[in-house]
Every structure is written in structure tokens, then in C-alpha cells.
């Protein structure tokens, strides 16, 4: 670990990783409890389309993926609020649209797809010095999310009670989708497009097996996300594995341990 820490690229990856974990740990309980994991998948594919657009236009992919994914998140929420369509149907439509667009952009971006592997599975080298701005943005987002925890949890528990207490539940839905989109895109640098949805689901799922309260669930998710990211990045450095794959494998291992614990009497 100490050896790895000497490298600036690893320091950057670790810093970005921890900040992404913070967001993921905060969002994951909502993703799990509101059954939004498919939304995560849909948004990850929107991010893929955004990245492909960036490669096609030869710009920084992140700056294309960010607004694109954000817009798709709002569009999905909008379609769900305004129609009788279920959320997974709305997501399915935008999912397909995104993959189709991404495929067209990539096909037209010949010669510039060299780092596609990094975008798919994450890369330790992906976080460059120029990304530190995005990381600062991330920290800001995590801080903005904190005061929303209570109202969001309340509406997650029972939307009608929250509405009866005059909370702006619909506005909070949009905010949550927006947060999800932004965190997801920023996490793509570390975890990659294909695994970023899992990154937002597994810590919450594991924590759900261990916690009796939503506050406990959130703390566990934060802890598990940070632990697996720290160890995963180190593993990635040692074994030269894609960073996202290492992190998600560790998350899955922790999930397995927690699940095993529930199989024994006295477990939760």
C-alpha cells in the first residue's frame, strides 16, 4: 500500500475513489430502498453514450457524459411523473436510445477509441491532474446531499406521509435522479461505465443485510463503499487489474460475507 501511495497517479485515483465512495455510500441506500438499481443501469448507459459522443467530437468525454446523463435522468423522471408508465419502462426506452446513440458515435469515432477499455472497466490512470476540478465538484455534491438525507429517507419510507407533511417530494425525486446521474458519471473515471451501476447498488445491498435502521444502513454503506474502493484500488495496482473490476469484486465479496452471516441463526 505504502509503495503505491508514492505515485501521484495512485494518490489521485485514491482521492477520487474515496470521494466517489462517499457519494455512492450516501446514494446507495436510496438506490436499494427505492429499487432504483435499474435506473443506475440506464444512467450508466446514458453515460456510455455521452463518453462516446466525447470521443467522437474529440473532447474530454466526461464533459459530454455529464450533461447527457443528467438530461436523461431528468427525462426518465419526467416521463414517469407525467405518464402511467412504470419507471422501468421509462428507463428501458432511454437505455436503448443511449446504447444506440453510443454505438453510432463510437463507430464514427474511429481511431480515438484506444482508451475505451478504461472507460468500460475503469482505470487507475484515468484520473488526471485536470480531473481535480471534477473531484472538488464531487465533494460539493456530497455536502449538498447531506441535508436532503432526512426528507429523502422520509419519502422513501412512505411517500404519502411525506406529502401529507408538505415536503416537496417531487422536487426531491428530481434532485435524487440528478445526484445519481452526476455521481455516476464522475464515478465512471474510477469504476468504468459497465460497473458503475453495481458500484451504486452493492454497498447499499450489503448494508441492508447488516442494519436495523436507515441511519445504520447509510453508515454501513459509506464504510463498505470506502473500504472496497481503497482495497480495490490497491489490488488493481498490485495485480494490474482494471480498477473498477477490482473494486466491484471486493464489494461482491463483502456482500457474500454479509449474506453468509444472515444464513446463521442470530444473524439479522
Amino acid at each position, binding site marked *: 500500500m505504502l509503495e503505491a501511495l508514492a505515485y501521484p497517479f495512485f494518490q489521485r485515483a485514491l482521492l477520487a475513489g474515496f470521494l466517489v465512495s462517499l457519494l455512492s455510500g450516501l446514494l446507495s441506500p436510496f438506490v436499494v*430502498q427505492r429499487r432504483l438499481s435499474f435506473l443506475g443501469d440506464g444512467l450508466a448507459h446514458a453515460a456510455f453514450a455521452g463518453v462516446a459522443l466525447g470521443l467522437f467530437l474529440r473532447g474530454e468525454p466526461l464533459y459530454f457524459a455529464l450533461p447527457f446523463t443528467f438530461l436523461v435522468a431528468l427525462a426518465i423522471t419526467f416521463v414517469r411523473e407525467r405518464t402511467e408508465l412504470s419507471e422501468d419502462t421509462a428507463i428501458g426506452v432511454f437505455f436503448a436510445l443511449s446504447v444506440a446513440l453510443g454505438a453510432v458515435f463510437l463507430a464514427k469515432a474511429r481511431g480515438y477509441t484506444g482508451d475505451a477499455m478504461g472507460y468500460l472497466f475503469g482505470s487507475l490512470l484515468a484520473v488526471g491532474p485536470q480531473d481535480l476540478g471534477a473531484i472538488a465538484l464531487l465533494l460539493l455534491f456530497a455536502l449538498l446531499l447531506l441535508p436532503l*438525507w*432526512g*426528507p*429523502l*429517507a*422520509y419519502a*422513501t*419510507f*412512505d*411517500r*404519502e*406521509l411525506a*406529502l*401529507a*407533511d*408538505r*415536503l416537496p417530494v417531487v422536487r426531491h425525486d428530481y434532485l435524487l435522479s440528478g445526484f445519481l446521474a452526476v455521481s455516476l458519471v464522475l464515478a465512471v473515471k474510477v469504476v468504468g461505465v459497465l460497473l458503475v451501476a453495481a458500484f451504486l447498488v452493492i454497498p447499499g445491498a450489503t448494508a*441492508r443485510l447488516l*442494519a*436495523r*435502521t*436507515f*441511519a*445504520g*444502513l*447509510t453508515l454501513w454503506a459509506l464504510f463498505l463503499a470506502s473500504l472496497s474502493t481503497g482495497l480495490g484500488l490497491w489490488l488493481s495496482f498490485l495485480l494490474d487489474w482494471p480498477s473498477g473490476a477490482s473494486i466491484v469484486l471486493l464489494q461482491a465479496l463483502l456482500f457474500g460475507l454479509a449474506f453468509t452471516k444472515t444464513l446463521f441463526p442470530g444473524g439479522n
Partner: protein
Amino acid sequence: MLALEVQRLSVRFGEFQALEEVSLEVPEGAFVAIVGPNGAGKSTLLKALLGLVPFRGEVRVHGQPLEKADPLWFGYVPQIKTFDRTFPALALELVATGLRRRWPFRLSPRERAQALEALERVGASALAHRPLGRLSGGQLQRVYLARALVRRPRLLLLDEPATGVDRVGEVDLYRYLEAYQAEAGATVLMITHDWEAAHHASHVLVLNRKVVGFGPPEKALSEECLRQAFGHLGHAHDLYVGGGHA
């Protein structure tokens, strides 16, 4: 002073008219029993007062238009407990949402004491640290009632709060409500199918899409009102008035 003024309140769900031109004036401190057949719009009326369903007409609460009324004035026990049963929550935490209108991350010692006291008031102290998803219907009713009471509301809106509660618990329930009313001067609107409870109320609202009768029990529960509300069921009057227990 009026706790509640409702003027020509109408609710439509698409083509379906659930409530039509409901008007009533409820004085502060009243105990209003709301009766009527299934689908009469009783729950819809409470939801309209809470801003949960859009309506036409005018509602004032303690002189304020509904938008300006403080949400903490209302204590609500919904008929159907729609909460996510897989959400990890303790009964005490749900009660605490009554204090702060958001899910508690951590309870301050004061909040904890208040929430525990509210649970004790409804005879549910033993449930404080039990997971909500595993409580029975009657236990949930008590916890929801504690949640409604903990904020010391001026207006209690209770949608069939005795459903699922055992006979002893039901008697307890009316005792808690009376005690709270005596102490806080609050107004209670309670939907009920319990004829006896309706007779003990200060006012009865007989509802069937429209106001069929509103006034003291002996007047509102007259044979004519009930026949009108329950339609061809000629024996409704006997059930409410003559039969006592149903």
C-alpha cells in the same frame, strides 16, 4: 373559533366525482365522527384536507387558507399503511417523524423522550425498538397514533384508527383521544364504522359523496339521514341506532 371551514369542496378522479360540494364548519374542540358506506369519499375528504388530493372549493384551518396552515397542526393516521415494509425502521423512529417532518438520523435526548412518552400514552412503549415491518395491524395503529400525537396537533385526522385494534385497545384508543383533547383543546375528525363511537362524538358527519347530515349525533344519525347515506339498506338505522353493537 372554527377549527375547520370547508366550502363547496369537490374532488374528481378523472370522470369520477368522489366528493361533491361538501361544506361544513367544525368548531374548535369538536369530536367529529365521520360515517358513511364504503367508497363514500371519507378517506378522500381527509386527504383533501392534507393536500394529498387536488380539490375545488375552499378550506380554512384555524382561519388560515390551507396553503398557509402549518403542517405541524395536523396529526394524521392514514387508513392504509402504505409504507415500505422492507425499509429498516424502528417504531420509535416513525414516531419521531411526527416531531420533525423528516426521517431522523439520530434522535436528540429530548426527541427520544418525547417519542417514548407518546408511545407510552398509547400503550405501546414495548414496541419502541421493534422493527416496523414486523408489527401487526393493531400494533401499527398504535404507533401511527403516537406519531400523530407526538407533535401535539391542533387537528387530528384519523382514518379508521380502530381497525385491527382489539376490543380492549379500542376502548383505550377513545380514552387516549379524550385525554389528549381535554388537555390540548384539539379538534378530532375520525372516520369510523363503530356506531357506538359515533354516538359518543360531539358531531357526526354522514357522508356519501355529499354531506347527508352534519350535527349532533341524535340529529345526524336520524333514520332519514342513514337511509339516504346507505341507500336501500333499510336496516342501517337499526344498526346505528337501535342495535348498538354491530
